[in-house]
């Protein structure tokens, strides 16, 4: 009995060791820690990854999210406008003729988000093409009228695919939790 048990465990180790080749890229942990935040400047509260360091209000350097040197930025903003007005401003900034189609909708805890993705050189950040994953939600309040909330994740296109699950998760959870301050 004892010999059979030990043999079984040994075979199990060999089998699992073989299967281990299909591991996550870069040895990512598969999890991120989200921490609550609240900002009077944005007029919003929500969560952001612990690994993201805030520079200016709503602007986070998230390069520490995973191993590697590529920059990753998370930008949260609110703007008194309608969704169409904000999109027009954005297209002008990015020198794009037309808005891309929405890639989906996300129902958050407080807001419903339209999701987009662009690849373009961004103003003030040099000629390098960046990937911009964007979530936009419009909220009407009696005090402020229409306000658009935006969650944007900026990455290098080559860096996106190896960490796609991580980046999608960040955008999804941050958008899900973002809510206007009452």
């Amino acid at each position, binding site marked *: 009995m004892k010999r059979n048990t030990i043999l079984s465990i040994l075979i199990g180790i060999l089998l699992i*060791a073989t299967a281990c080749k299909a591991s996550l890229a870069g040895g990512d942990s598969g*999890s991120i820690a989200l921490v609550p935040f609240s900002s009077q400047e944005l007029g919003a509260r929500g969560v952001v990854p612990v690994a993201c360091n805030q520079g200016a209000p709503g602007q986070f350097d998230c390069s520490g999210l995973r191993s590697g040197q590529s920059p990753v930025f998370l930008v949260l903003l609110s703007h008194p406008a309608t969704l169409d007005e904000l999109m027009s401003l954005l297209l002008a900034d990015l020198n794009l003729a037309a808005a891309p189609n929405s890639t989906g909708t996300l129902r958050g*805890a407080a807001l419903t988000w339209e999701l987009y993705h662009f690849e373009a050189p961004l103003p003030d950040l040099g000629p390098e093409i960046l990937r911009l994953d964007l979530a936009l939600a419009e909220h009407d309040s009696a005090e402020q009228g229409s306000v658009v909330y935006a969650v944007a994740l900026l990455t290098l296109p080559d860096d996106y695919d190896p960490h796609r699950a991580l980046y999608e998760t960040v955008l999804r959870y941050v958008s899900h939790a973002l809510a206007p301050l009452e």
Partner: protein
Amino acid sequence: MTESAKNQTREATDPKAVRLFAPDALRGLIIVFMALDHANLLVAQKHPPGEYWGGAFPVYYDTLAFLTRVVTHFCAPGFFLLMGLGMALFARSRQERGWTQWDIIRHFLIRGGVLIALQLLVVNQVWKLSPGGWGIEIYIGVLFALGGAMILGSLLLWLKPVYLLGLTLTLLIGTELLVPDPSLWGPGMSALTLVLRLPGGIVDPEGGALLWSNYQTLHWLELVTLGLVFGHWLADDPRKAFGRAWKMGLAFLVAFLVVRTLDGFGNIRPRMGNAWIDFFNPVKYPPSIAFTLMITGVNLSLLWMFSRAGERAQRIVWPLAVFGQTPLFFYVLHLLLYIGLGHLLTPNGTSIPAMYPFWLLGLLILFPLCLGYGRFKRRQPAHSLLRFF
């Protein structure tokens, strides 16, 4: 073979002493999962942060990472439940041998004290050897709370099961009312609050912690009182008791689905998202009602399943019972072993899939040691300190 005989294994040296197979097998299973959690921390260095009542909360973008964490949730609640169950069975058997109530209480006071001392004097020093760093001066971990719960539980041993059930329900709901709003998480909690009431820590300016507390006796006592109930039921009629475990386990799981779906009281903080992983990722520190219902529902169902194991199935899962009969010995040794494996083979960590063979390797090494120690401790006299391990 009768039902009760099927679920019992005879002790080596005392022909009158029998052990129930199902609690040992369940304890062994959760010990194996605990080793996985610690291999994740010490070998892979990919352990997610804890699921606390406030502050940071983990979310997952890899299913394996989540499953690796969630199966280890069965450990702490299982330990407390089975400790209560074992205490009641122990008290009954010792009373039959002529021990007085005071003899039994004194035994548990000493045993609980040993667990607390082991946490503070030995295990905390071992944690400081972690390959990824530790940075906590005084850690209030699971052994501390188990010791405290054993001491308190010893005073409740002679309550009737119906009163113990009432106390369990009171503690389940009452302790959740002690948890403040998650927005109040942060510095400023006193050491007494951290030890008695709320998980968290006193963090020093360099990023370490002077004190960190994950397990408060009061929050976990409800599982000991539930375990006491099952211990009494098992002593009276094992077949009926295991049947109740299945029914109660199912009821707990249904209640979990309701509490989690409503996402209000019983969850301590709202779900982080709408994915299925978020549904099964409740607050553990302290154990929310949702967490306790989910995990204890599964643990009770597993207890029933192990009780139904025939001779052939018992032979297959017998290694679990070997681990389950030497839990404290396993606990101390497995920490040292995985710390050693981490330092020697993966000093900078590794991926979670690559950690699995190391976890199994650890179990393979620990198995003969636990088997040998189990035989050794059964030869010790009833009062021997070595039997505590």
